[in-house]
């Protein structure tokens, strides 16, 4: 028994179209994979001593402040169009120099977004820390006032108490930041694909996901193939 084997012939134009779709998709994916996925921005901060109030300031303290204001910060990030999930990438750690400094770092899809996120995180930590300091100052001021009113301390002691009360009142009148930012560093695009992207007009674009790049590339390739096919077959409707 003979079995007829039919080989269906695919027209060269269809093969060319399929190759175009694959090629554009591949270019898009290759370019995407050549790019850096995220950029880090970091800042070193040092605590500024405020008179008699000296709660221990270390990485744990900052992490606690960030955790305490996390929900509020997430809401603010959402309002500004920033993914609050990026807060999971915040790192707080001590650095060797200068002594006592702490580094806060964040990651985001572009250097500009990383810088903005870092600014918001530091502002939030600073605001919460200042609020805590204010509470401490009020409590201490009340205690000092009571001590001055009720105890008969020796003149040098009273003088010191009065000086402390004056300092606390001045601070409460105009609360100031508790931290000084030393140096902000933002990672710059280094890979060739990122440099190409940076040289294009407009803001530096974030790296898309490779899957999305593949789909988008295939779609654009299909659109190009369709346009070519229409022009080849019909010319221009006259």
């Amino acid at each position: 028994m003979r079995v007829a084997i039919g080989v269906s012939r695919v027209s060269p134009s269809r093969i060319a179209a399929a190759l175009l779709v694959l090629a554009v998709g591949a270019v898009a994916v290759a370019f995407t994979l050549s790019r850096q996925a995220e950029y880090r921005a970091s800042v070193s901060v040092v605590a500024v001593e405020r008179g008699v109030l000296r709660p221990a300031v270390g990485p744990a303290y900052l992490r606690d402040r960030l955790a305490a204001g996390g929900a509020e910060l997430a809401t603010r990030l959402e309002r500004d169009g920033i993914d609050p999930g990026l807060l999971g990438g915040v790192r707080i750690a001590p650095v060797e120099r200068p002594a006592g400094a702490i580094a806060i770092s964040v990651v985001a899809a572009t250097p500009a977004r990383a810088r903005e996120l870092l600014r918001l995180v530091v502002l939030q930590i600073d605001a919460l820390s200042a609020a805590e300091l204010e509470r401490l100052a009020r409590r201490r001021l009340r205690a000092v006032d009571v001590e001055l009113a009720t105890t008969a301390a020796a003149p040098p002691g009273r003088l010191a108490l009065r000086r402390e009360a004056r300092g606390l009142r001045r601070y409460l009148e105009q609360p100031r930041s508790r931290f000084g930012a030393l140096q902000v560093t933002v990672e710059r695009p280094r890979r060739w694909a990122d440099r190409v992207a940076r040289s294009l007009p407009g803001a530096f674009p974030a790296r898309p996901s490779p899957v999305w790049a593949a789909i988008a590339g295939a779609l654009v390739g299909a659109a190009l193939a369709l346009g070519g096919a229409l022009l080849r077959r019909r010319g221009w409707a006259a």
Partner: protein
Amino acid sequence: MTGRTALTVGSRAAVLAVVLLSTPFVVAALGPDAYGVWIVVVAIAGLYGVVDGGFAPALGRLVADAVARDDRAAVRELTTTAFVASLLIGLALGAIAWVLAPAFAEVLTPGGGVRPATEAALRLAVVTGVAVNAAGVLDGALIGLNRIDLLARVRVTYATLLAVGIAAVLLAGGGVAELAAAQLGAWCLAIAVAALVARHALGAAPIAATALAPRRIGALLRFGLPPQASRVSLIGALQYERLIVAMLVGAGAAAGYGVASLLAGGLRALMGQAALPLLPALTALAARGERERLDAEFARSSQRLGVIFAVAFGALAAVAPLAIEAWVGAGFGEAVRYTWILCAGFAVSALATTGYALAQAVGRPAIEARAAGVAAAVYLAAVAVLVAALGAPGAAIGTTAGLVAGGAYCFTALPRAGLARRGVLLAALAPLATGAAVALPFALASARLIAHFAPTRPAAAALALAVGAAYLATLAGVLRATGQLDRLAFPGGPALARRWLARAGAIAGWAGLAAAGPALVVGVAVWPALTVLVALTGVVAVLAWRAPAYAFVVTLLLFGFEGTLKLAVAGEGVPLSAAPAAGAAALIDLCLVLSAVGVLVSDRLRTPRLIWRAAGGLERTGLALLALWLALALPQLALSASLGAGIEGMRLTQLYVVALPVAAVAFHRSRARVESLVTALLAVFGLVAGYAALRVATGPATDERVYALAQDSVTEVSTAFRAVGSFSGTVGLESFLVPVVGFCLVLALLGRDRGYAAAIAAAGGVALVASYGRAPLVAVVAVAVLALVLLVGDGRLAGVRRLAVASAVAVGVLGLGAGAVVAGSANEKAGTRAQGLIDPLGDESMRMRLESWGDDLEQIGRHPLGQGLGVVGDASGDSRATKRETDNAFLKVFVEQGLPGGLAFAVGLVALWLGLARRLLALGEDGALGLAALLGTAGFLVLATTGEFFEQPGKLVAWTLLGIALGQAFQHARRDRGEPRVA
């Protein structure tokens, strides 16, 4: 005809070009003061023409008539008499001007040392004026002899002599007196050349002492005074309005107005030359009594000139924002809108010149004089009143009203006098209307380019050239598709033109693909979302060409996923530092324009005409009022506080009405013939509603939530996030899904796709409940109740069917109610909002709305003509704090467009809706699709009473559904007619 028109316009343009191009050199060489004197010198030379009795245009007609009768003696008599009369009038005026010249020089150069030169220049200008009048007579003779080619040579000779003279004077270090002498010399030589060529054309000297015949004066005045009145009326229109603006508003406003007036009026003066060759041709045919050929020639020529005027005035309107920026720099934004308005008036006025030529040719010159009188009477009164009421915009509106009134008089007088058929005149007007429609989006785009990018003056000039070229290409395509381009004569005939067009199109297509290919590959690697959107726009463009109705359906899909597209584009950024969301919105709008053009052009507007003819009183009233509402929007653009806001307001609201005729064309067939289109439409609605319901179940993606919260709208009820689906915000989702749910709900009761439609309605209902909005639920229930009333009240339905319909509606309403109860339990605030459904008057937000509506009604009373487009809604501010809101789409229209616009909109919608409801109910089963669409529209209209929903994405669905209802209501009107290629 077209070639001779090009000669007259081109040769006059050559003279203007010499004056314009020499201006910077004259200013640099003489300084601004002496340049001012030079301008006066040029103006004086031209002013004589205003008082010359119109001998030049009269000669054009009378000489042509004499030539047709082969009466050479009459030609010589007419020319000689007109020449002598012109000289006499010129000399009389010149004598007076000569005496007044020193005093005028004193005024121009008070106490200046250059007064002797100024005085000499003015006296030379006086002599030049006499020469110009004499030259005008020879021009008229050449026109009458039908030697437009020789006329063009004389003008080009004059332009060349003037250019050489100016160059020689400036190189020799001469002053303004020498320039005036050069001008006089150029005119004298041009007259000699004109006399020589006229002799050559006539075969004898056109002017001879023996040919003087004073009895010819009567005929010369009879045919000369009407065009002279027309000319004076036009000059008055250009000068009077500036004067009134300066007096009533201020010199600053007059300056802005002057720029617009110079551009539009200058173009009108140039285009006035286009109809010159028509006069001798028509006169010759009339003199020989060839009536049929006369009618045919007038029909052909007027339609061709209509196309030429559409090209010229449309291009000016399209590039006006960029051209004015490039010409005079920033700070003349007001001039743009005046230019747009004036372009409309001057285009009609230019077209009326064809009618005047016909009237002259057949010996009825009084029509032109009366038209000039009508125009002058209307603009004199309208400008004075409107400038006092509206400020500077009133001048443009009043002038345009006058010019249009004059043109309208001409176009009604001609058929009344039996000189032309109405159809011929309408065919001549059609290219102007097409040009206006095509120019509008380009004009708006030009204004947005200026607003967004603030280009430098050279960049603005380059952009103006690009936009102008794009306008011309689009207009050519539209005119060709609608058969209007065929009326233009191409050497070698239409076949050759088509071949060249085909070649040019193919080359442009491949060149475009070759340029777009690499750009798209780079783009997709860096900005995939934007590039995909660009590619989709390309796909829509191709579909608009091959299957326009599906291009429109794809556009609806893009609108349904506007939020997803915008957030994807915003997440990646866009090139050129443009605003990502605005860029995405612009591309989606472009898709709408492309698909609409595709559908309407492929139909060649046959369906709208068919529907209009078949429509009853209510439908016609509704359609006419909606058209009036749109027409009023253009002049009301001038009332807006800022042009940018006005344009944005128009884009947000009026632009999308285009979906109404598009959907009517696409769905203007029986249900069976549009089955696949309905399936595609339901698929789009299903995708949008299904995705929204899915996101209710799973919660929004992080990006969606973040993007929605970052928008300046309410997307939360206390702690509960309101559903946004694939939209930028909750309000957008509600606006889209309310008409969709209403449409699918009724389709599920009546149509063939019951299951699928019911599933879409259910999915959309879930999303609406999760949007925590009360108005959407009320709107859907209103649709259900309306459907119940219409369907159960329809005596043709069987009892079982009625019961089924009632039960289904009851189940749907109960489902929504149960959903609202569940949603109300999300938190305390949601519960309070749900309570508002039961007691609306006790609800706080309803009380605030009622208070706000009262304020708006007061505003309408204070501004019955409206406050201009863009004063309410998204165009009125950048944030919720600065935006003005009426919380009612109808009140928004009343506030912006006053009582005329508001009433036209509201009454038009209601009349059209009622007319269609009556017609669709009468169709029975055949009207099911249309009735469902109409009820979907009703849902949107109910929703629109609680917010500015005509600015939200759902407006496109609402206008589309109304269009579907319109198309379906007249599906049987298409008997035996060829089906247009729309799908």
